[in-house]
């Protein structure tokens, strides 16, 4: 009787010890490898669910492509391939954003501009340049005070996730960031 009571008292402790031993044997107490946003190289093609995007350059300008004054703007040069089955009019929103380390935030609004000879849509499996523009600092206008430009910025790439609903079968929404590219910033401001 006494021996049984003693066994019952030690049983939970024994169970915990066995469990810990199993976790240790499975490598559960090993040092975890670093997990965080991935870092991509300049020009490296990054495969997203529907696009392949390579970040090529970032420049800071204060004029439009027609040389008229504009707010200070980060102009991101990309090489993009659409992998869908029919021509897509625009690059999906939310794929690209820019972080300026130690500086004010860039605008969350990203405008797609004419890139080289291209002003139209994205054809399936045809790699082509694309150009995105973000006002920096966010909300600045043509008369904004001069802000020192950092040596480099981080271009953050995010993927999409399917967001099908009852109205649209082919609907996608911006997902979480996938990683970033550290890109030297070419300051081409004229003012």
């Amino acid at each position, binding site marked *: 009787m006494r021996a049984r009571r003693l066994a019952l008292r030690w049983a939970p402790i024994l169970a915990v010890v066995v469990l810990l031993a199993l976790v240790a044997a499975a490598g559960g107490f090993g040092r975890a490898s670093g997990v965080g946003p991935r870092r991509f190289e300049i020009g490296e093609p990054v495969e997203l669910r529907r696009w392949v995007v390579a970040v090529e350059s970032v420049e800071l300008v204060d004029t439009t492509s027609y040389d008229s004054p504009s707010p200070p703007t980060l102009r991101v040069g990309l090489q993009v391939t659409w992998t869908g089955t*029919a021509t897509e009019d625009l690059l999906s929103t939310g794929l690209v954003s820019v972080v300026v380390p130690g500086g004010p935030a860039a605008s969350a609004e990203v405008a797609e501009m004419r890139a080289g000879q291209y002003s139209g849509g994205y*054809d399936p*499996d045809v790699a082509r340049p694309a150009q995105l523009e973000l006002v920096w600092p966010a909300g600045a206008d043509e008369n904004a005070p001069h802000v020192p430009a950092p040596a480099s910025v981080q271009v953050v790439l995010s993927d999409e996730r399917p967001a099908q609903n009852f109205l649209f079968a082919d609907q996608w929404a911006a997902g979480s960031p996938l990683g970033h590219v550290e890109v030297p910033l070419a300051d081409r401001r004229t003012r």
Partner: protein
Amino acid sequence: MTRLRGVLGLLGCLVLALVVAVVAPDPAQDLRRRWTDGEVGAWAASPDRVARVGAVSVVRSADPGYGQPFTTGQALVVTEIDVQVLHRRTQLSRVYLSTRDGQQYDPRSEFVAAGPSLTQPGFTRHSTLVFEVPLRRLDGAELVVDADGASVDGYADAIRVDLGLRDPVRVGPETVTPAESTVTTT
């Protein structure tokens, strides 16, 4: 009893509507079509329009008439087409190149002045379309003159023309300058 029957009837209708919504193909994605097949140089007639592909060339450079020529490492398929509009005006907004593996390429909008646009019945629209397509996908490609939208019976009339491109496709070295789109009385 009558009230219960009414509620059950209503519930039945709701369930039926839900089933139809889930099971039925999305008309925006899966438009059903009555196809009329054609070939280069011949008129192909559907109930609302008649189309003829006049000439097809494959090049690497085309001049949009402003700025630098549009050049590519792929292939530019330059297609001249006449469309006679018969009964009702049409935007001709869904004319595309379809490849053998089901990819769809819209005409490059950089050449919009040469492309198709709103055409009234009784007129023939002459346009030039420029498609940028990977060279490996040209074999067996077709030009599709699709309906602007679905018809009442859920079917759309569409014309498809075999462009006569077969491997190995010859890519011309010249720069093509598409002429502006024109319209004439039929």
